[in-house]
């Protein structure tokens, strides 16, 4: 993505310009995150309110799932500790991905329509990275607290041997699931280049996202196939958590341990290609 970066002799003035440092501008991304955090912290009360309201919303949902599981003894063969680990993992991994992508790409269609996106193209930056890092969202505090709390609650009651191998798998699974979230939001955001409006796609996303909280085995076979393939929500938590706690994964079988870690990077690559193609189309026929 980086253009020609060589030292250029200014033919007009004879002045020789220093070459721009090659590669990714990490200092810029770090600076953007700090600017964004400072901006958000100017409205501290609203940030705390967002944490509290979101926290209560999630806590309510999790409590109702807990009640159902206690009343009926399980859900699709999953006990409460297993479910707690699944829900915690789902919330935590989603939040990591969403911090970098959700609010950023939710506003993508307005950004394209109102020409703000064009302002990024006239700067020597990768527009995707600029959007992601300049929009880092601090609103996910309650997601992390609740997610971690549920995972700890579940893991404490499960016979898991937390050796280096499992720890590594856990972290890699979280990263893969976070990448999956980021990739999905990127794909939806890229639709803005093609459709003009993409915000409504987020509604569809969250309908399916709700389904991905639960063990995929409780759904009918056609829906399972969709969640494992076309709309790969199964990899957000069900597949990686099933692999970690040793539960069978329908349809995938022995491929599950590899796919649990590979799904995120694969979808991220596809999202990058899709984003690039849509951007190219925007530059060719948009305006």
């Amino acid at each position, binding site marked *: 993505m980086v253009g*020609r970066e060589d030292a250029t002799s200014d*033919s*007009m003035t004879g002045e020789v310009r220093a070459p721009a*440092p090659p590669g990714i501008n990490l200092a810029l991304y770090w600076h953007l995150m700090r600017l964004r955090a400072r901006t958000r912290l100017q409205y501290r009360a609203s940030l705390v309110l967002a944490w509290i309201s979101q926290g209560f919303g999630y806590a309510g949902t999790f409590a109702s799932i807990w009640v159902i599981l206690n009343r009926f003894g399980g859900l699709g063969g999953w006990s409460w500790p297993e479910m707690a680990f699944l829900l915690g993992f789902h919330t935590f991994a989603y939040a990591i991905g969403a911090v970098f992508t959700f609010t950023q790409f939710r506003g993508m269609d307005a950004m394209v329509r109102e020409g703000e996106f064009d*302002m990024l193209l006239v*700067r*020597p930056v990768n527009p995707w990275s600029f959007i992601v890092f300049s929009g880092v969202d601090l609103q996910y505090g309650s997601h992390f607290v609740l997610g971690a709390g549920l995972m700890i609650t579940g893991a404490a009651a499960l016979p898991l041997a937390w050796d280096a191998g499992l720890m590594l798998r856990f972290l890699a699974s979280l990263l893969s699931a976070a990448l999956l979230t980021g990739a999905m939001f990127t794909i939806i955001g890229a639709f803005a280049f093609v459709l003009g409006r993409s915000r409504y796609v987020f509604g569809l996303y969250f309908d399916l996202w709700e389904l991905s909280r639960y063990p995929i085995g409780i759904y009918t076979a056609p829906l399972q196939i969709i969640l494992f393939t076309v709309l790969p929500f199964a990899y957000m938590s069900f597949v990686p958590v099933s692999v970690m706690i040793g539960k069978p994964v329908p349809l995938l079988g022995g491929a599950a341990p590899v796919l649990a870690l590979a799904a995120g990077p694969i979808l991220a690559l596809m999202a990058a290609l899709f984003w690039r193609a849509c951007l190219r189309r925007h*530059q060719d026929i*948009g*305006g």
Partner: protein
Amino acid sequence: MPAASPAIGQADLIRPVRARDSPVTPLSQNPHRGDGPKGILLMPPIIDARTVSKVFRQRQSTGGFSGALRGFFAPVTKEVRAVEEISFAIEAGEAVGYLGPNGAGKSTMIKMMTGILAPSSGSLSVLGRRPIEERIANAREIGVVFGQRSQLWWDLPLNDSFDLARHIYRLPEAQFKASRAEMVAMLSLESFIDRPVRQLSLGQRMRAEIAMALLHAPKILFLDEPTIGLDVVAKDVVRKFLARINRERATTIILTTHDLQDIEEICPRLIMVDDGRLLFDGPLPALRTTFGARRRLTLDFSADPGELILDGARPLPSEGLRRDFEIADDERSLIDLIRALPAGAPLSDARLHEPGIEEVIRTHYQGRSA
């Protein structure tokens, strides 16, 4: 107002002067020229557009609910040629006004030169690169100000936005500080540099936008409607600054505007477009001749002079003590004209009216849409 001359309003009679055929800035006056051993020009134009076109597909709506329904299931699109075979060459250090009515393709051309949009056909080179293919390298050497978009960080002090520019362009600390100090002094930003951008007036914000676009010392500054919405004083500050930056730093300026005064004060050269096509490219004073605009002579008499025939002047509808004429010959002076009056004509006052640029252009566009 009726057409001031038969040529006005007849696009087929207008012969645009193309930069390629007749360079506008004499090369001998170009401070950046680089002559070869035999006086051959070595330096290519800083911007070189050759038969550049941009075509969009636009959905057509037939109106009403049934039209909307039809459009949903079987959308009908039409081709919109926003820019049509435009050619020009801009030398380093020039200041060029890019003028045209709404929808003439001004912004589309700017977007192509800045790497936002790809041309549909033709070739476009900016600083020796194809902007769309080498967007990042191009962006490093240009500055862009869109009058209706901001690149400043809304909630934070202006200084933070400047600091962001340092990171975006990877400027060494010393270079950044020197550049910022220069901009702050030249644009009088000192009093509000620590204020959040959201609290700045429109004029202050535009000055800040321009400063931000110049911190990395770009070779070309593109401005799309930089004075839109500004009051008279703020416009004046922006115009004077842009003229100065062009003169002192030799920054090439390409500016689109609706306000002809921007062009009169900043840009010695004008490119005029309409319906995506190039209408005129040349020095501002040549516009009048190209569009066939004529000077007008008004004579006041103390007594009715009766029927009046003036050599080289066409009488315009007028009667009584005041008579108007259209002067075909640009070389004839007021004295020549008065001398041509019949002896003893009771003349009390005489005025020669030079048509303003705005009048010339307005008359042209009115003639076109009639």
